[in-house]
């Protein structure tokens, strides 16, 4: 029951977190679930701890933590918060929710 890779663009995502706080972990988990669900196989995700690489925060205009950047496809989209509101995340990433009846609708 392996899902076929849905046709569509590749997503380049960068998740900026500030240390391994509970909020950061929550964001990482939320993002992973979304990626595995709607974007499975189409995501190039990198998680960056801005404590470790503060200059990247400046380069990518990060103000809030956590921040998720969609670098591709253009235009760049910016999502802040712990990504717990999945509908907003999908809207922010401009991903049409997959009408998968087996999927857990949160």
């Amino acid at each position, binding site marked *: 029951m392996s899902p076929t890779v849905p046709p569509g663009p590749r997503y380049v995502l960068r998740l*900026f977190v*500030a*240390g391994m706080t509970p*909020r950061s972990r*929550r*964001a990482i988990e*939320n993002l992973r679930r979304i990626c595995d669900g709607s974007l499975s196989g189409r995501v190039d995700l990198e998680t960056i701890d*801005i*404590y470790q690489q*503060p*200059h990247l*925060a*400046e380069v990518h*205009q*990060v*103000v*809030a*933590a*956590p*921040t*998720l950047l969609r670098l591709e496809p253009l235009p*760049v*989209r*910016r*999502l*802040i*918060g*712990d*990504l*717990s*509101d999945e509908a*907003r*995340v999908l*809207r*922010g990433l401009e991903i049409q929710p997959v009408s998968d009846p087996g999927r857990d609708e949160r």
Partner: protein
Amino acid sequence: MTAEASIQTVLAKAPTGISGFDDVTFGGLPTGRPTLVCGGAGCGKTLFAVTFLVNGATEFGEPGVFMSFEERAEDLSANVASLGYDLDGLVADGRLAIDYVRVERSEIEETGEYDLEGLFIRLGHAVDTIGAKRVVLDTIETLFAGLSDAAILRAELRRLFGWLKDRGLTTVITGERGDGGLTRQGLEEYVSDCVILLDNRVEDQITTRRLRVVKYRGSAHGTNEYPFLIDADGISVLPVTSADLDYGTSDDIVPTGIAGLDAMLSPGGFFRGSSILISGVAGTGKTTISSYMVDAACARGERAMSFVFEESGAQICRNARSVGLDLSQHVEAGLLRFEAARPTLYGLETHLARMHRDIERFDPSLVVIDPISALRGPATELQATLLRMVDMLKSRGITAVFTSLRTDGGFDERGDLGLSSLMDAWIKLLDIEANGERSRTLYVIKARGMSHSNQVREFQMSAAGVRLVDAYVGPAGVLTGTARVVQEAREQAETLRRAQESDRRKREVVRRREAIERQLAELRASLEVAEEEEAVLLGEDESREALLATERRAITQRRSAAE
């Protein structure tokens, strides 16, 4: 040293290097604490903040971080380049860091809980990279426009202020003025230790910038509204009120360069540091007299500064040449500077602030304001401005010459506020029109602390210079101009006539005397003749008597012989 150290433990201050501002706040902004600079749009908040950082980096060895929420680094650099600030150069030197924080609501999707740790990290990173002591956040409320969760923002901003304090960073936060409060969010003013309000007011279509220190925890500060300037030289604040009249006085005498005028004043000139009003209607020679005083000052090797509101400096130089003064040589020698501006270009306060700054820099011993009556504004404000101007000049011991188109020494047509009472000396120039000509006359109305002539002088200007001529004062009244010349000629003729008459009379007397003497001589001669005749007659008588006696004796003898 110990005293200094103890003061520093009370409240250390970080100088801003903004001239005047550090005087108002007795040293600058509170070191290691946040200061809010707030005001409406275009009132100079960002410029104030940039100046604070640039001066910190260049003058006080304190690198700074500029975190801009509104302008990109390139725009910021370009905007302040006109003031001579080389932000790019400072950034390259590692003395300044600029971080543009872009927060655009339309590009941001909020998906859950967040904090502003990204901002903290960026700021911390920039501070650590260059070892910054100063930070500017311009304008923090932009965050409220970009992010919707005000509760988080307020909490995070409180945390930010605490963080800045913990790190001992002297911070300037700028804030847009809100309705009814100093800032829109009403947050920054409570968490800041010092609040400075900038204001840009328009009255009668003229803008005046003002600055006020609203609060300053743990420090005294000037509480007034102070006018300030933004021009090619950056910001300067004018600390205005020196209410006390405690300036030193000088017994030094400054000649005016016009011999006739000096002669009217018993010490031969005005006191140094006095303020002199020259009033008169158009074309009476106010500027010429002030040009003479400028020339005399420069000839003594002193610096003179002329604020002119109706002519350009070059025009005044040219006009002065027509009375034989070469002012342009002094300009070239750097002894004389003209500051020409239309009076309507700025408000009173701005004019005053500009003068203050220019005088501070040029340090002249003579200042000419020509004409003071060109300054326009509400009468009370004019009075206050003039008073401060006079105070400012006096406290520096600068001799000031004010010219005024008003002959009665007032400010304007309506008010009766006396300009003249502020002045130590008053020269009044009057035009007298008579017999189809105009002649200039000059009075010294007052000269505090010296005796002076109360007589009118006729004031003549020609290529040979200015000459004061005693007016004709005689039984026919006071005459000037051609009338005086005519009267003088008439008097001369009269004198000549009288002299001739007197000569003639003298000659007549001499002639009469000679005639009498001649008569006397004649009479004397006749007398002599008479005396001679008398003598002859007497002799004849005597000889006849003697003969008769002889004859009688002979007869007697004969008779007696006959008997």
